[in-house]
């Protein structure tokens, strides 16, 4: 067996060909990365997804798939959708607070104008 097999071929216990679709993105130094992604998506699905993408976008695709797989392993019910939910809540809360603060500014500015007018008179 080629000692320089990529992490995917090592995990799958197969020969790592020269044109292995996984090898640029799953170096042997990081076996957990492929193990995690394989657990959630399966090698066949990953291979299909990568084949359908232009070569220059595959590295980013693998990064995002790894992130989502890791989220799913850590939170089997919600995965990375849990993060989306948290962010949506944060946005709603910040928008509410911003609207409240902007209303306070409007009130304060109105009071200030009224005070200035009465001082002038």
């Amino acid at each position, binding site marked *: 067996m080629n000692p320089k097999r990529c992490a995917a071929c090592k995990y799958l216990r197969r020969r790592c060909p020269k044109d292995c679709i996984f090898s640029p993105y799953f170096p042997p130094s990081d076996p957990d990365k492929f193990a995690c992604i394989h657990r959630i998506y*399966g090698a066949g*699905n990953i291979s299909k997804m990568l084949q359908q993408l232009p070569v220059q976008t595959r590295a980013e695709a693998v990064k995002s798939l790894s992130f989502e797989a890791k989220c799913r392993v*850590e939170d089997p*019910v919600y995965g990375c*959708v849990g*993060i989306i*939910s948290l962010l*949506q*809540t944060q946005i709603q809360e910040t928008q509410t607070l911003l609207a409240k603060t902007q209303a306070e500014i409007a009130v*304060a500015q109105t009071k200030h104008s009224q005070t200035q007018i009465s001082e002038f008179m």
Partner: protein
Amino acid sequence: MGGPGSSPCASCKLLRRRCAKDCIFAPYFPSDDPHKFAIVHKVFGASNVSKMLQELPIHQRADAVNSLVFEANARVRDPVYGCVGAISYLQNQVSQLQMQLAVAQAEILCIQLQHEPTLQSHHQLLELDQGDKALLLHNNNIDNFNSNNNNNNLCYAMSSGQFSSNFAPSSIMQMQMQDPPKQESLWT
């Protein structure tokens, strides 16, 4: 649920197999919504979904299926970034809103300080928030604090260029997972 005489669930229809009475997919993939299972199967694969569901208590499986469908849809729409694209976009929104909020809060503070007639002593400034205090005490003209010009300069300094966000899109790849809140809003 499957069985003799009843309609197979969407999963068993797609997989062309008999839909057993205890089919793990049947409660979550009804036959009237074939697209739901098709998309999950395309991204994750039926056997992976089955394994994931088997590892979960029954009362959590519906939410798990909904989140898997959501992720699968996101991945089909954006094959490179999937849900991570949405996370990046939302993080940007949060950053921008927090900056706007900081500016608005600084403005309110300026207005309050301008209208406060008795705020003359250095000690009164120490009651402000740490960040505001740091900015105000930086000004060496504390004795002229009540003059209009200085107030305006301080307020300008506080509300512009003082609040920068260090958000980097790539940092989402290192985000820590927290306990997720209830997910109802995503499914409505």
